[in-house]
């Protein structure tokens, strides 16, 4: 039962990644693209956690923690770059 559920979730998050990619491609504004990149990071974290369950190992939690931190910092840095024209003032 878990196998079917995980395959469904893999499909859902993969499709979500494709939606995000579409928004990055057509996004009319920079804020749309930042938002789509942030959503992409969240989807990738979910995929990593699911892959950890799939393999039955806890190694991927460190990886997803790192991806979460890098995603947050990069989103805020991109926003600050657009807002102030500079990242570290």
């Amino acid at each position, binding site marked *: 039962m878990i196998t079917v559920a995980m395959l*469904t979730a893999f499909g859902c998050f993969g499709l979500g990644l494709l939606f995000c990619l*579409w928004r990055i491609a057509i996004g009319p504004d920079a*804020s749309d693209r930042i938002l789509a990149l942030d959503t992409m990071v969240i989807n990738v974290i979910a995929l990593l956690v699911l892959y950890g369950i799939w393999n039955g190992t806890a190694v991927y939690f460190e990886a997803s923690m790192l991806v979460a931190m890098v995603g947050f910092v990069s989103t805020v840095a991109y926003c600050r770059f657009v807002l102030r024209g500079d990242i570290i003032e």
Partner: protein
Amino acid sequence: MPALTEALISLLIVLGGVFGLVGSFGLIKLRDTMQRLHGPTKATTLGIGCVLIASMLYFIAVKGSVSFHELLITLFLFLTAPITANSIAKTYIIRNVGKKELPATGRRHGWSVYEDPPGAPESQPSPDVRAEA
């Protein structure tokens, strides 16, 4: 693994996947940037919360030990999602909404997007990238 635990974990995983899909679908379905901000920041965060709870239950059921990594990731994501949404909304405002179009704040200080915080040194450059727009 008991059948009830397995059913609960499966339900949480499917629920997380559906929430993630709905959040990402909102990203392409909704019309305006400010509307699009709702989908990922709420639905997708809820989806990943469901997946992390499912993972926690799974490792409790299989290995018998509680791992706190999932709690850390959940806490981090739930703390950072509002900050990210606020930053993106400010980015949208400064690029698309002029200083004149914003409603009055009713306080001594104006919108933080266009004004320096109270007590900031005067030497800081004012961020009016599109103030005249």
